[in-house]
Structure formats: C-alpha cells, structure tokens
C-alpha cells in the first residue's frame, strides 16, 4: 500500500519541519532577544577545524556553528530539516531524494547548490580522506544532483534511517570549489553555510565565530558572537562559570554537576542518554572466546554500585547491550544483576573453576575508563577473577590495543539510531569491530531492521538482537551516563542534547542580564 507509506513520510516531514521552527515545544517560552557574545567552555582543544574530519565534541560544536548538513538531529532523535527542506524515500527505501533550500549561500557569498552537496558526500565517501562520517552516513552507493535543488542518494541496500544518518556530525556541506581546489585550506579556514562565520581559530586556546547575516533562517542566530574557550582542567571551567567568566559548559562531570547544582544564577542541565563506557572482549582470544567466561564476568558486576561509582547516580543501569530507553525502537530485557554463585558455576563449566587472571587495558582519557576498570577489578575478585588494570595514554591505546586487544575499556557517545551504534561496533561489518564477535544471525537481524519501516516490527527485531548480545556478552555494558552540562541563567534557548555532540547554539540567546549583552 504505497499510499500509506507516502502519508507516513509526509507526516514525518511535517512534524520535523515544525520542530525546526519551534525547537522545544514549551509554554511560557520568552521571546528570544538578539545580540551578545556567548562564552562557551569546552574541555578539549579544537584540534581539527576540517568539518569532515572532526572527532571530538568541541570540534563537532565548531563545525556545527560554521557549517550545515542536509538534516540535523532533534532532541527526539528524529531528523529535522537543515539544508534539506524535505525528503522522500522510494518503495524499498533504497533510493532517497532530498530537496535543498533555494538561495542558500556560503560565507564567501557563493550560492550553495545540489552540486556542492554531491561533491561534499563524494568527499566524505572517499577513503583517502578517511572521514569518520564515511562509516556513519549509511550504505550510500552514489549521490547525484537531479537539479540545482534536488539530490538523489542511491543506496547499496535499503536503509530507513538515512535522513537521521545524514545528520551525522561529519556530514557537512562544503563548497565543491574548495574540494576541487585547496581542500586542506579547511584545516585553518572555514567556508560553510552555517549560522556563524569564523573570526579566529587558536586550537589550544579559543575559537571565535560571529553571526552570519546571510543565514538561511532570517530570525537566527540570535547571538552576535560565540567564543569557545578551551579549559583542559574541569575545576577551572566550573570555577569560571561560577565567576561568570563563561556562560555555558558543554560537558560536565557528575561531581562538578553536584557542585553547581543549586548555585544561584546557574542552571544545571541533564539528559538521559545512550552514552556508555564498556568493557570489550576480544571474542577471538582465550579465555574470552568462551561466552560462558564473558557472561560469568558480566554476572560479577554490581550494576547499582557501578552507576554510583561511575556516574555518582547520574546514569542508568546497563544490560550489556548498547541500547537504552533514550533510543527509539527500544524494549527493555530482564535486567542482569550481580550473581557471584552463577558466575563461579559458569567459570567451572568453562573449565576455569579457580577463576583466571587477565590484564584490562584502559586509556587514560577520559578518566571514567580507569574508574570502570578499577571498580570491575574489585567486583571480579569475588568470583576469583584477578584483573590487573593497565592504563596507557590514549594515543598508545589507539595505536596498540583498540580493535586489537583481548580485554579493554571503551567509551562511546550515543549514536543517532540503534542501527548507528550496532553497525558502528558490533556487526561483522562494523566500522570499529572492537570485539570481533562476528555473529551472522545478529548481523541478519540488524540488516533486516534497517530496511524495515514499521515501528513495532523494528522494535521487535532490535529486541531480538539485544537478547542475543545480552546472552553472548561480546562486551559488558554496566551503565549508561546521563549527559550533563550547565549554563548561566541569563543564557536561554539551550538545552543539553542526549547525543552530547549536538548543540544547536543558533537557537541560544542571552537575556538582558548577561554581562556581554549589548
């Protein structure tokens, strides 16, 4: 019944379009006032300016300020229009058509057309550039411009989540001329269609952007200027917020959250999220090639304690699957709890009655990785498992352990879709196949789900997949973190996004009490 599907798509578009105009449906919403400079504290250097190569939140934020994508991700995890006004998929969701806003211009004044979109995606898909987006924007086979304002994506396989996938942080639209010409210039300069224009860029100190007067939405942005201040030290950024030296903290730790909570002039921001820290098994390396061993270890975890130790209570229990209620299509399984007896039994079954010894590698950034390792170490002791924690610099970790190791700690932002996270980490063709679990049944479920539109059916498929993971435990996922942030009360129109890497500062504004106003 093609009609139905049309209707469905139509409605999504409508809904999302609305959402774009009123980002948060809430009563008593004061009308935004224009002007002022917003000072944002970010916890890492903005090392990479190139929008297709950004890797960490501060870089994502910068790119988001300067560039637009085709779609953007709402707090409800649904796609909203950005450069694309509307979109539509064919019968089997293998071909998608996007309608681009007319008369959008880049910061240098040149118009942004379908050609730029095509060029941008070709660049993203070009392996030589090795853009992180390449693995995240979906199974795109080819991109072509139908006319100046229409782009058609042909996929290698049906993919229902394409509109959301295209909102990926690296999927930014840049001028075809730059791609053809001096592509590397994007490392130090910027030319996008975003709400702000680049003023100055000092990777380790600050990034300054100013309002883009030619932004496609005449109302926004409200701010004249945004400054990103780099604070490598958490204490410092919190103190600065309290001192009123900055207006907003993009990423906050639980303890700092507690410290700021209730301070007058400050709003703490919190959102449940699919962000998690996990313990990966190299399922191809003994003893972790035995599911019983993996499950045994999972059973030693006191998840309530974990939520406490790792998140100070700002989190939710994990069930050894990467999905939780902040994802769509989610249905909870029965929660796994600590059960030492069963763990020991399983070990005995697996031929390790006296437990075993293993080295757990944790990168030193962020500190939460080590905290998980240390906590697990203590819990595993009870089942006779001796864990030696090895901490190493992140660079060394990436170079030597990541996706290769037998037993190590991972840390992930929430992905826009269940498909996103599963395809990123756990399917055989996962971009970062950390566990080498390679379970074909699991792959099949995920692939079926991504080509299914019906919510109930999809939910069911993902639930089966979850069950499979929960049973085989390629990775222990003990807890999910809420994403935390804080802002001065004088900053408005901003709320923290579950995805943690989406900010939407074009909606933010400062009221009259802000020191930088006027």
């Amino acid at each position, binding site marked *: 019944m093609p009609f139905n599907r049309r209707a469905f798509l139509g409605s999504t578009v409508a809904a999302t379009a609305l959402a774009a105009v009123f980002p948060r449906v809430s009563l008593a919403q004061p009308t935004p006032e224009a002007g002022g400079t917003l000072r944002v504290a970010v916890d890492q250097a903005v090392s990479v300016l190139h929008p297709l190569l950004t890797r960490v939140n501060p870089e994502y934020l910068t790119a988001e300020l300067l560039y637009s994508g085709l779609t953007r991700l709402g707090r409800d995890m649904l796609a909203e229009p950005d450069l694309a006004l509307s979109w539509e998929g064919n019968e089997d969701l293998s071909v998608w058509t996007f309608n681009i806003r007319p008369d959008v211009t880049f910061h240098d004044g040149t118009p942004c057309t379908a050609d730029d979109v095509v060029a941008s995606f070709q660049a993203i898909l070009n392996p030589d550039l090795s853009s992180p987006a390449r693995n995240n924007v979906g199974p795109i086979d080819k991109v072509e411009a139908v006319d100046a304002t229409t782009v058609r994506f042909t996929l290698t396989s049906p993919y229902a989540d394409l509109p959301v996938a295209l909102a990926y942080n690296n999927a930014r639209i840049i001028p075809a001329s730059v791609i053809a010409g001096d592509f590397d210039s994007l490392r130090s300069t910027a030319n996008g269609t975003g709400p702000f224009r680049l003023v100055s860029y000092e990777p380790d100190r600050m990034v300054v952007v100013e309002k883009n007067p030619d932004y496609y939405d005449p109302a926004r942005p409200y701010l004249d200027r945004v400054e990103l201040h780099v604070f490598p030290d*958490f*204490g410092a950024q919190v103190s600065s917020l309290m001192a009123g030296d900055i207006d907003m903290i993009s990423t906050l*730790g639980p*303890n*700092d959250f*507690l*410290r700021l909570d209730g301070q007058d002039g400050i709003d703490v921001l919190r959102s449940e999220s699919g962000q998690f820290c996990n313990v990966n098994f190299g399922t191809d390396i003994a003893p972790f090639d035995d599911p019983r061993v993996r499950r045994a270890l999972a059973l030693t975890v*006191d998840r*309530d*304690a974990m939520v*406490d*130790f790792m998140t100070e209570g700002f989190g939710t229990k994990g069930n050894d699957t990467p999905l939780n209620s902040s994802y769509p299509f989610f249905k909870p399984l029965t929660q796994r709890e600590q059960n030492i007896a069963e763990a020991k039994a399983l070990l005995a079954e697996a031929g390790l009655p006296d437990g075993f010894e293993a080295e757990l590698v944790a990168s*030193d950034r962020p*500190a939460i990785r*080590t*905290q998980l*390792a*240390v*906590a697990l*170490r*203590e819990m595993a002791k009870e089942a006779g498992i001796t864990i030696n*924690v*090895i*901490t*190493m*610099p992140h660079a*060394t970790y990436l170079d030597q352990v990541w996706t290769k190791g037998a037993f190590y700690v991972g840390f992930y932002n929430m992905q826009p879709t269940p498909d996103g996270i599963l395809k990123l980490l756990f399917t055989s063709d996962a971009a970062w196949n950390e566990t080498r679990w390679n379970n074909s049944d699991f792959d099949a479920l995920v692939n079926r789900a991504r080509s299914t539109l019906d919510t109930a059916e999809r939910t069911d498929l993902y639930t089966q997949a979850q069950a499979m993971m929960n049973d085989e435990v390629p990775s222990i996922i003990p807890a999910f973190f809420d994403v935390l942030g804080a802002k001065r009360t004088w900053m408005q129109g901003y709320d923290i996004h579950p995805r943690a890497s989406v900010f939407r500062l074009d909606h933010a504004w400062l009221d009259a009490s802000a020191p930088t106003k006027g």
Partner: protein
Amino acid sequence: MTDFLGRLLRTPQGFLGCLIVGLIFVAVLGGHWLTPFGPEDMQALARYKAPSAEHWLGTDQYGRDILSRLLDGARSTVVMAVAATVIGTLGGAILGTGSAYLGGRADEFIMRTVDAVMAIPSLLLALLVVSLLGSNSANALLAIAIAFMPSMARISRSVALTVRKQEYVSAAIARGEGSGYIVLREMLPNVIAPIVVEMTIRVSFAVMLFATLSFLGLGAQPPATDWGLMVSEARQYLHRSYWILLWPSAAIALTAIGFNLLGDGLRDALNPRT
C-alpha cells in the same frame, strides 16, 4: 660515628629531619601491617565519609579508607623516590667522578654535554622519558633517575675535583698507587659525604616530581596508592570532600620537608660552619 650522630641531632634541622624521616620509614616498613582496612577495599555505602572514629582520615570516592591507602602508599611513594634518587645519584656520581678523574678534553666534552642536557627542565625530561616508555611507576622512577643524573654529575664532579687537588691524593700518586686504589680508597670516602647530603635533599624533589608526574597522568596509575596519584584523583572530588585531597598532599609536603631538613642537618653536621 656516634659523635657525628650527636652533632646531627644537636642541630634543630637534623633533629626534626630524623624525627620526620624516621616516622615515614616506620610507615614504609610497618605500613602494611598498620592498615586498618584493605587499601583497595571499596564500600559502596561508605563513600566520601568525613574523618571519624572508624575511618580516621575519612574515605574516598570508592569508599576506600584513606589512612590505609596513605600507609600503603608510603612504601611505593617514598621507596620509589629514594630509589630514583639513589639511581640518579649513582649514575651522576660515576659520570662526574669519572669525568673529573679523566680530566682534559674528555672531561670538557662530558661536562659540556651534561650542561646541554640540563637545558631541558627536569620535569619536561621526565615527561618525555615517561611518554617514551609508557606511564607507570617503574618508568616514572627511571625517568626521574635520568632527570637527576646531569645535575648530580655536575655536583659530584666539582666535589671530586676538590678532593683530587688534595695533597693526600698527590701523595698517593707520588707513591705510585694504582688509579683503582686512588679512586676507591683515597677519593671516594671523601667524595661520598657531600654527595649523600645532596642526595638526601633531592629525595624531597623526587617525591614531588613523582607526585607531579602522577598528577599529569604520566606516573603511577589507578588503583595504585601512590600519594601523587591520590591527590590528582581527588582533585575532581575536591568540592565534595576536601580531605581526600588534603591528606595525601600533607603527606607529600611532610615527606619533602623531612628530607630537606635531614639533608641540611647532615650538611651542618658534616662541616660545622661558624
């Protein structure tokens, strides 16, 4: 020897120094048995406890007993620092005395090179070495030892040179003694004393350097009870319960003061100045 000890204890620095360092070594040796709790036992229900009858110094973010961790950490921290200093000193002393004994162009070359290495701040040198070898206590120890060598070489050389000029050394040479005897029996006993003084004082630098490395995430790693690491871990809980940070900081400072005092005491005892 006894009269030397007497002189040492008569100087206020010497007395205080001996006292503090003595206490520290009690902790180092007996710490393991003195700990009221397991230094790594976590208690989900007893986190961030203020000092109390049960936990004299309170508990940390995992509900671990801080006093136990301090006592347990004394060994790693102090022993590490001392070891690093000793290794660094030995290396430097060999380099310096050797250079002084060789003299001439060899001496010039060695010392110029040592000067050159000294142009890299010792903290930075340590950082480089650690990031080269990977961050853990053992490597931190090595890093600090290496970072200490140039300056120790300088000092021991100047000491050795003054001794070398002494007439009893000339006498030995004129007597036709072998260089082995001259270096070991005539020079070394007179070189050691001042170097020991310098070494003692350096232990305090080592303690702090360790702490700083751990603070920068390049020294000992969790769940180690290294004091510097305890401080750096505690920083993020500072506003929740300051004592997690306070005690290890105090321990570090006290140790440093102790060795500083002891060193000065030794110096005064060895050459009583007007």
